């Protein structure tokens, strides 16, 4: 088990390096640096700016010094907010994004599992169709439509919840979390229903039923485990997707998260910011994938053997 984790961590190092290199050269492949075309600015300013951001050095040297700084944990100064460093901005923006993703995940798992379990108990009846069609609706409704719709209903017509902000007014975290979590809830509903159906059709469940155990007991003690396993393998990449995909929700609800920074950095060609965020998110994605694999292996003894023996 430990061997497996260590091997996966070692494997992720070249992955992160590759991500760094791909992004670096892609970003710098863009024609014209941020200061190279400045007009009406005396040459000494350009010189000073280029020096400050090391843009006067050859590309490979810039790359290595960037990687060097990276190893020291320094992402450099931002081009967009010249008096802020990328580290500052990530530290400022990430908590909101993380919290948003966290609540959205909780919402998605809670609602998704409940819907999936309900649907699986009486397949191909109304009790199956209603939650499953709503799940399909959740998948088909883009968050930039769902968000404004929720805002209109709960924020403006009913005035129950605030329409913008994060942690400024009580309740302002509810709508963004639901908006972000909705489509994932829908996926989880579908996945858990499938997992549950498979488990429920197996012999030991039938035996349990025959023994006269209550439905609730069967579901919670036996079947749910089978329903959860595929959900966990889905969650690893999904959480990563939640983190990176939160920018739409952050834009709609004016949440000062990293997703908004990140997307705007891309619009601004804020090189250091793009690099910093990409590496940061890539790292998170690697971590969450690893985490979900580890949990899967831990839950499933058969996989554990395979891992122990190497594949």
């Amino acid at each position: 088990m430990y061997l497996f984790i260590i091997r996966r961590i070692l494997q992720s190092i070249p992955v992160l390096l590759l991500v760094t290199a791909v992004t670096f050269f892609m970003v710098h492949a863009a024609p014209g640096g941020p200061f190279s075309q400045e007009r009406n600015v005396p040459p000494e300013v350009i010189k000073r700016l280029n020096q400050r951001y090391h843009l006067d050095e050859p590309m490979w040297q810039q790359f290595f010094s960037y990687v060097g700084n990276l190893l020291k944990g320094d992402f450099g100064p931002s081009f967009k907010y010249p008096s802020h460093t990328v580290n500052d901005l990530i530290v400022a923006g990430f908590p909101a994004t993380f919290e948003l993703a966290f609540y959205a995940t909780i919402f998605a798992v809670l609602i998704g599992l409940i819907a999936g379990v309900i649907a699986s108990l009486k397949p191909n009846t109304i009790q199956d169709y209603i939650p499953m069609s709503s799940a399909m609706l959740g998948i088909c409704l883009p968050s930039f439509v769902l968000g404004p719709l929720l805002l209109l209903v709960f924020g403006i017509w009913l005035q129950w919840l605030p329409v913008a902000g994060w942690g400024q007014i009580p309740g302002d975290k509810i709508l963004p979390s639901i908006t972000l979590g909705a489509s994932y809830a829908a996926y989880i509903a579908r996945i858990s229903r499938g997992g549950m159906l498979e488990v429920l059709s197996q012999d030991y469940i039938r035996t349990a039923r025959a023994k006269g155990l209550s439905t609730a007991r069967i579901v919670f003690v036996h079947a749910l485990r089978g329903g959860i396993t595929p959900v966990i393998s889905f969650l690893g990449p999904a959480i990563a997707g939640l983190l990176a995909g939160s920018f739409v929700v952050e834009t709609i609800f004016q949440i000062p998260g990293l997703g908004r920074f990140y997307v705007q950095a891309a619009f601004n060609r804020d090189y250091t910011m793009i690099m910093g965020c990409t590496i940061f998110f890539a790292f998170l994605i690697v971590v969450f994938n690893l985490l979900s694999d580890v949990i899967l292996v831990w839950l499933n003894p058969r996989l554990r053997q395979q891992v122990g023996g190497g594949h």
Partner: protein
Amino acid sequence: MNYFLRLIIITLISICALSGCKKNKTLVELGNEEQILHVGNSDEIADVDPHTTTGTPEHNIQISLFEGLVTQDAETLEPKPGVADSWTVSEDGKIYHFHIRDTARWSNGDRLVAQDFVDTWHRALMPALANQWASYLFVLNNAEAFYNGSIKDFSAVGVKALSEQELEITLASNTPYFLQLLNHNSMYPLHIKTILKFGAIDERSTLWTRAENFVGNGAFTLTEWTPQKVVAVKKNPYYWDAEHVKLKGIRFYPIQSDVNAERSYRAGQVHLFDKLPKDKIAFYRNNKDPAYRTFPMYGTYFYRFNTLVKPFNDPRVRKALAYALDRESLVKNVTKGSELAAYTLTPPNPHGYTANATIPYDVEKAKKLLSEAGYPDGVGFPKIKLLYNTLESHQKIAVAIQEMWKKTLGIEIQLENQEWKTFLENQRTMNYQLCRASWIGDYIDPDTFLQLFITDGGNNETGWSNTTYDQLIKKAASSNNQAERFEFFQQAEKILDDEVPIIPLYTYVGNRLVSPSVKGWKNHLQDFWSYKDLYLESQEH
């Protein structure tokens, strides 16, 4: 049925019930109680430093943090005492003596002295700082020569501290709008000691503008600057007129989309915000909403040509494009905010100047000009891009104009939208072919508009240059006689309308929502307001 379904129904009902019962106080309501004004600002700010920024979002905040020698009465537009409590003007209108008030203080308690203005304006004119407002200081004697490097010694520039409280300003020429200019953010005093603490005097973007370091002289001082979240200011206890400042603080939220901003307003999260979305204007106007305010503004929405690139280096092409635009239809059917179609750069002026020359709407002439330029019916016209910053209303105008040109001239243009700062940067570096622009007058005088297009002006950004035009603007600046000045401006405007480096589209009209709980608000021709006059009153429901 099974108990799951019941469980869910109960949960849902209780969630709804809980949130329904506990109706929270909105930020506006809380703000009314605490005298905290919540403002929707249209974008994240690049910086607070007035010498390195030019945008409206930055300006909205700077006017709370700094104060010039004189301020302005919002209604009469007449100068009012600011940092200076009195002043005298010499007979030729060239020498001003300002008396800095005894109680003038920086927000750290330091005395604000005449030398502070000298040092600040010295910094503003340092070439390495690349201050885009530098040309605004050229009204000072020898300022331009100092900026260009032909004078090395700043003491030759027309600003002198005669004593701690006596400031003598010598102008290059009689400038009737000089007192108005002193209320402009390019003229605000900066705390040089703080700037020097965090870097060289002419270094851009140092840490001096951080909340924990910042020192200013306005009615408010910076307490928080969290990018993408909020810029917060609180009442400055050292401000000379602090006893009349009723607001305890202001919070500026960067809300890029006006639709989001309006939603925030309706949900009671901001008292006011910059621009009412076009689609909503009719609704508020027809309902006679007490928050709705519409007022004329001293500003023009226009398109810039990059006159250095093909095909726009040919004035005939520029003219053809300009003549082909039906601006009446544009304001009536697209912008829909009771804007006035603009046929020249300078808007009609309350001080008595209205341009005679125009860029007419004349499709036949436009077609003729285009074929003279070598593109009959648009044949062979190069692929060009129209650049605008990402905002639905700009896009609508761009799409409408794209179609107008296609219909009348047979030319196809592509549209490209960019995020605000990239857009500004590209406009500044002239990395565009055709772009959307706007200008709100810095002072009520045609000079603020016509000054833009002098050769290599910091905000010219079209590459257009005309020596006669430059001379006329200079002559107007040195003239003592208002009628004569206006005549020079008329001639300059005619050149502009002949050469068409820009296409004026419409004259701005302000359309705002200001919460009825905000008292002391006055509509202003430049959409400037004075936070120190505002106060909040709770609304009874």
